[in-house]
Structure formats: C-alpha cells, structure tokens
C-alpha cells in the first residue's frame, strides 16, 4: 500500500530539458513564476502558455502526466476560483443572499485558474526532468552566497538529501511494522477517519523510535567517514554551465520581458 507512493516524480530521459543544468532550470522556474504574476490579459497569458507547451514538447514528458499531477490541487483551484468570482468588486450580474457575482470577478477567476495551473505545471515540469539529488545540488549552489549571512546552506542541503535517501527505507519499515501489527489483529482499513488515525499510533511510535536510532547510527557513520561540515568539501559531480544553459536562460528572460510588457499594457 505504501509502496505505491511515488516520490521525487523524476522521469529519467535524455532530452534538452533533462540535460540542462539543474540551476538553470531552477532559475527558469523562478523567472517563469515572476512573469506569470506580471501577466494580465489573454495575450500575456497566451505567451506564457505557449512557452510552457514548447518546454513540455521538448522534454517529451507526457502532457497527461502533468495533468495527473494537478489532480490533488483541483480543490484549491475551485476554491480560489469561487472566492475570486464573488469577492471581486465591480458590475454585478447576479446576486443572492450575501454573494454578488461580478463580471470582473468571472474574469479574475478565469485568469487566476490559468495562472495557478501554469505555475503548477511549470514547477512539475522541472521536478519531472530533474533528479532530486541534482535539485538539491542546485539549491545548495544557488543559495551559496547566503553562507556569508551565516545561513546554514550546506547543512540544509545535506538534510534534504538525507531525507530523500531515507524515504524508501522508512516506507519499507512502516510497511513491515504495519504487517506485524496486522498479524496481531490491528485494523487499519475500517472505521471513520478518527479511528483510522488512532490505529496509526502503534505504527508511528516504533517508526519514530527507529528513525531516531537510525539518525544516531548514521551520524556516527558519517563522522567515521570524516564528515566535518561543508567546509573544504569537494564534489564528485561538479555543476558546470554549458552554452545551452545560457541560451535557455536568455530565451526565458525574453519571454518574461515580453509578458511583463504585455501585462503592463493590460493585454
């Protein structure tokens, strides 16, 4: 049951989108989000959607996979749409009780949904084409300058990669504990939500205890392998920008500028 969870959601491949430096992809996503928030009308949103479509085509990630990733967020989408529809002041079309539907509200709702959908798909496209390790590396590298401000960048990246490393181990362990409890008559499948949540307690307690023990052992093992923080560390895989990274970044920047200009003109 727990084994079905897919984490990291990385689809390996060898397209331009996969080979791009993870830092480039991260920066592109940031620029894309900025551009999305500057977009205003059909033209600017159209430009953003077109660019995303192009990226999806290049990456060869199935469009269906992207849409599937949106499923858990549909509720949030509907919620924001409804809020926007009724709470935007403007020309009223219909009203009942305390709710007033406005023309501006409908437009705001439409654009908001498009904006969030594009935003989610854009970030998903990055996680689909970048392995979690590469992403961690990229974050550590990009946040590097913050080290001067005593932000523990290396430690955060290390924590992230260890967490990623132990997800399958802990899932396997949770599965084992659940089987052991089931063998002794525990019931995880019936009853209301509260009851099921209560049934999880005897699984979580041993899982936590074992996680702490693992942490202790791993810390010792890391010390034994000369780990002493991020200072003076070198890397097996060093990130290097290629020409294609510059090209993609420039393209992204141009698209962003286009969207900002169109947006500020109200299109």
């Amino acid at each position, binding site marked *: 049951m727990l084994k079905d969870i897919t984490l990291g959601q990385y689809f390996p491949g060898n397209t331009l989108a996969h080979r791009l430096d993870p830092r480039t992809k991260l920066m592109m996503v940031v620029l894309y989000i900025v551009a999305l928030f500057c977009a205003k009308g059909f033209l600017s949103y159209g430009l953003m959607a077109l660019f995303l479509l192009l990226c999806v085509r290049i990456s060869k990630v199935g469009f269906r996979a992207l849409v599937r990733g949106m499923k858990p967020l549909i509720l949030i989408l509907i919620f924001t749409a409804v809020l926007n529809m009724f709470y935007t002041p403007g020309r009223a079309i219909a009203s009942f009780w305390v709710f007033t539907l406005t023309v501006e509200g409908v437009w705001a709702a439409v654009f908001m949904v498009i904006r969030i959908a594009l935003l989610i798909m854009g970030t998903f496209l990055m996680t689909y084409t970048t392995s*979690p*390790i590469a992403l961690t590396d990229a974050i550590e590298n990009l946040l590097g300058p913050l080290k001067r401000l005593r932000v523990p960048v290396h430690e955060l990246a290390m924590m992230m*990669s*260890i967490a*990623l*490393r132990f997800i*399958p*181990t802990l899932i*396997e362990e949770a599965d084992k504990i659940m089987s052991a409890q089931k063998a002794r008559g525990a019931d995880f499948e019936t009853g209301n939500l509260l009851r099921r949540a209560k049934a999880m307690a005897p699984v979580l307690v041993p899982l936590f205890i074992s996680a702490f023990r*693992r942490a202790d*052992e*791993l810390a*010792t*093992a*890391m*010390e*034994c*392998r*000369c*780990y*002493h923080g991020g200072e*003076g*560390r*070198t*890397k*097996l*895989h*060093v990130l290097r920008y290629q020409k294609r990274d510059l090209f993609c970044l420039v393209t992204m920047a141009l698209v962003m500028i286009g969207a900002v200009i169109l947006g500020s003109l109200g299109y």
Partner: protein
Amino acid sequence: MEMLKTERLSFAYPEREGEGQLVLKEIGLTVERGSIVAILGHNGSGKSTLAKQFNAVLLPSGGKVWVDGFDTADEAAQLEVRRRVGMVFQNPDNQIVANVVEEDVAFAPENLGVPTEEIRTRVDDALAAVGMANFARYAPHLLSGGQKQRIAIAGVIAMEPECIVLDEATAMLDPQGRRDVLETVRRLNRERGVTIVMITHHMDEAECADRLIVMNQGEVYLDGAPREIFQRVDELRAIGLSAPETVKLLDSLRKEGLDVPLSAISVEECAGAICAALKAEEKNAPKGNETEWNQF
C-alpha cells in the same frame, strides 16, 4: 611499526546508570600493520566499545590509544585518525548517506577535500575492489544486504585507509552475503596490505584471522593464533563461547581416547586428522581388535 596500540585503556560510558562501571579495563594491545585480527566475545564483553576507540568515535576515560602514532585524544589529529581507520558497522542501511551508489562511495573523499578528478578514480577503484563496479548508478535501497555492505566497505576504501575495522559487519547478512563480504575483506588485506580488525561473535569468521583476541567483561581473556585458542575448549566454554564444531568433535573424540590433534580447524583438516588417527589406531591395534571394528 604497529598500526594500532592501546596502553592501559579504560572506558566507562559517562551518561549510563551505575556510573563508573568500566566497560573496558586497562587494555594493552598492539595490532601489527597488515595483519588480520579478530576480536571475539559475547554481548556486553566490550568488543564494540573497543572498536569505537580505534577511530576516536569514543575517547578513552583512562589510558591512551595510538593510531599510526597519532593520539586519538588529540582533537587536532582526529581527522588524521579517522582517515586512517575506516569503520564498517552492522546495519548497512544506516551507514549509506547518498541515494546513488557512486555518490555514497564518494562521500568520504568529498569530505576530505580530494580534487574532483581524483574522487572519480578513487570511486571507480573502490567499487571495482568490492566487485560492485556495475552498480555505480544504482539506488542503494534496491540492493541486497550483502551488496549494501560491500558498498559501505567501498565507501571506506575510497578514503584510502590503512586499517578497516568491521564492527559485526556481517551480523545482519545471509550466508551468501557474509561470504562475499569476508572474501572482499581478505582480498583487500592480501592485495593492498590493509590491516583488518574484525569484531564478531561468529567463531568461523575468526578462523581466517592471523590473530584472535577473546574479550570477556572488558578484559582481554585470550590472545593468540586462532588455532591455539580454539584448542582451549574448556576455557572458552567457561565464558559461554563455544569452539568451532570441528574442534568440538575432535575434543569429544580425544576424550573417548582417540589420538587426534585439536589444531585441525577446517572441515577438510578435521576429516584428514580423524582418518589419520583411525589408520594409526588400526596399525597399532592387535589383530583381534580388527574383527571388532568390522562388526562395528
């Protein structure tokens, strides 16, 4: 020069109940460079605590530990100590840091600040040394226990240590995994002259060592060649350890009056010794006895 040396080493866990209870009591040992030493003892004998003293994970409460001439209590030398003595622990899952095999093997050299190109060669070399070169891009959780433990050993080899301490490294493995790990370790000793210290409670693992140290209640109980020590069946039994099955068999036969040496540890040697003893018996025995044998 000796690789490891302890002098009147005592140790008590400071945070534990019953304070002042010594886990290690005035231990004086030297481990020669290039040797394979097995440390045997049952639970609570202090063998794992002793192992952790060898690379400054634990520091002595009394006495000294030297690693290749460095005092482990000297904080400035800690990194030097740790890069010389690699540790492999019992649970392979809890010592693998990264989620790709080659990244994990690269962990120690990365920490030591080895240049990127050299890390690459060290990783490839270490993976080849444990016979896992084909698994460089694998995720560790997809490997078997024995394979994971070999990755852990590769991670230590990449540090280029002069000594590897295996702290019950085979305890959680199936027979095949155990054989693979032991074979790997022996080859490292033979081909690269790496000093090996094996902490174990398996008698048969101790067989392949040059020297066997038996620990009991924080003290060195017996110390010598495995062959010698296994012959002291009664002394081993006194502290709850048993000799290998072969030696036990030979011991019983001896007590029945058959003249066999106790030094035959492996199954082949044991069989040979029994056959030789039976033949000798046959020769010496008077004619009448032979029929008795045949009837039997």
